[in-house]
């Protein structure tokens, strides 16, 4: 048998290997995915475009950004600003974070790390999942009942920023519990075993291994739910959010309040002829920036903790 010259074999092999078979389904699928991404982006771009037309010139026009951010929301469109709404939204963000974060993480820790897997535990988990789907308006009613009209009203001062913040905290609580539980469940069992095997108590395993490992995930979930809660206007209406009032300064948590979504809602309902359109669009842009800022803080914190735990 004569040996086949190397050149010929290589050519034959190369021809086979390089033969292109059309992968029509693959290309179509890829195109479809790209189109879907395009639709998502288009919605966002449309939103920004709609509110930029009059919003951006207004924000950076002769009136100026500083004036818009530092004026209360009443009087004439030329003078009205988002000051009180900005104070309200940012203050509520702080109240939600301070109240819902520790409570939610603690509840999730108990469910995931301490409670044994019984019928009761599973029932509680299902209930919490369902609570996350309850409409925000219902939480508004709940908040009005608990923080405004009950004896607690004495402590919160009734229809105040504090009541609103606490209500939104209750609103996000189920979501914080669920996302924290997911993050805790994602911690590998081998890590816990390693800790127990080294002679750690459950609390030591949780503190030194489980929590640091789950923290980035917990943080991401919490920040996302926080951003969602700050976009709610409906429950705050039930808690007495106002559009035009005096006060509403930083630290004034037991006074009248409003929030960015409520202010936008209020301005949007006024007749077009009064000329509130630029204010409304500018307020929407401010809201977008606030939400973006909160998410950015979340991402920065998460990256820091991820680096630390590695």
């Amino acid at each position: 048998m004569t040996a086949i010259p190397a050149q010929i074999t290589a050519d034959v092999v190369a021809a086979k290997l390089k033969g292109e078979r059309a992968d029509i389904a693959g290309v179509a699928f890829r195109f479809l995915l790209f189109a879907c991404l395009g639709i998502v982006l288009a919605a966002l771009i449309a939103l920004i475009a709609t509110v930029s037309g009059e919003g951006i010139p207004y924000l950076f026009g002769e009136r100026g950004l500083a004036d818009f951010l530092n004026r209360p929301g009443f009087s004439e469109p030329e003078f009205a600003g988002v000051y009180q709404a900005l104070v309200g939204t940012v203050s509520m963000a702080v109240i939600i974070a301070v109240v819902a974060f520790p409570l939610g993480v603690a509840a999730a820790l108990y469910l995931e790390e301490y409670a044994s897997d019984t019928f009761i535990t599973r029932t509680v988990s299902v209930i919490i999942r369902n609570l996350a789907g309850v409409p925000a308006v219902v939480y508004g009613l709940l908040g009005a009942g608990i923080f405004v009209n009950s004896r607690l009203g004495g402590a919160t001062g009734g229809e105040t920023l504090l009541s609103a913040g606490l209500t939104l905290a209750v609103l996000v609580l189920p979501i914080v519990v669920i996302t924290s539980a997911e993050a805790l469940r994602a911690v590998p069992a081998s890590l816990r075993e390693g800790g127990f095997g080294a002679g750690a108590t459950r609390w030591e395993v949780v503190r030194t291994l489980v929590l640091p490992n789950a923290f980035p995930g917990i943080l991401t979930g919490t920040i996302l739910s926080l951003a969602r809660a700050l976009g709610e206007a409906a429950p705050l209406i039930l808690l007495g959010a106002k559009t035009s009032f005096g006060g509403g300064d930083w630290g004034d948590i037991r006074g009248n309040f409003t929030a960015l979504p409520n202010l936008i809602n209020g301005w949007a309902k006024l007749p077009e002829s009064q000329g509130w359109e630029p204010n409304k669009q500018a307020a929407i842009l401010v809201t977008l920036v606030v939400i973006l800022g909160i998410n950015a803080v979340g991402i920065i914190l998460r990256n820091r903790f991820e680096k630390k735990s590695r």
Partner: protein
Amino acid sequence: MSSPSGTSATERDTTSSDRAVPRPEVGAAPASNADGTTVFDVDGLSVYYGDFRAVRDVTIDVRQHEVTAFIGPSGCGKTTVLRCFNRMNDLIDIARVEGRLAYHGVDLYERGINPVEVRRRVGIVFQKPNPFPKSIYDNVAYGPRIAGLAKKGNLDEMVEHSLRQAALWDEVKDRLKASGLGLSGGQQQRLCIARALATNPDVILMDEPCSALDPIATGRIEDLMEEIKQEYTIIIVTHNMQQAARVSDRCAFFTTEVNEQSDTRTGVLVEYDQTEIMFSNPSDERTENYVTGRFG
């Protein structure tokens, strides 16, 4: 070497020899380093998961400064039994233990025994290397720190000593601050051994410690077992019969019994003896079939 084994263990020895040991071979000449002290005296141990009996009637005694190997086919309960020795099975809600498992004469499943204290004396190395996502130093220092053993200054010494015992020091001494996850598989497993040694335990349990490693890394770990058994007592679960033959002084062979009615499998201890005898002249046919490769 931990001191408590001294006095209490001697007392223990008399009581343990009082007990009628069914297998005459067990009393035979102890292997090289062993001083004949019984560390664990296991009598009629069964493990249940809920109503299911996973392993039944295990009776063995583990000697100090020996390597005791558990061998047998998959699913025969070797690991389940191993995890009884430091109460790792407690972490499984439905796991339950019957029978007696005495450590220096104290039943580990007696009321009031704190599993955390047990685990500080009986360390464990797992099948898959599981270093913490922390630095090499912090991995080794973990046990001493939580046990409150870390006095200022000597923590560095403890870490170095443990890493040297685990034959890892020379490879990592210049990067103790680097993450333990950046090491190779074999190094990670030696790091886990160092972590287990750092609490200065009495016994080290090893659950197939080399199953994820290549032959060179395996050889290193076997050498180090030979080295550290001077100071510790080792129980190792292994799938690898050659490994059991190479490293162990005594060997327990487990297999599974099929329960006809329920179609479930329960692990049973077939034979327990000196490794030499187990591999050359076992008394049970099933052991012989297994070690000669005819089954399993």
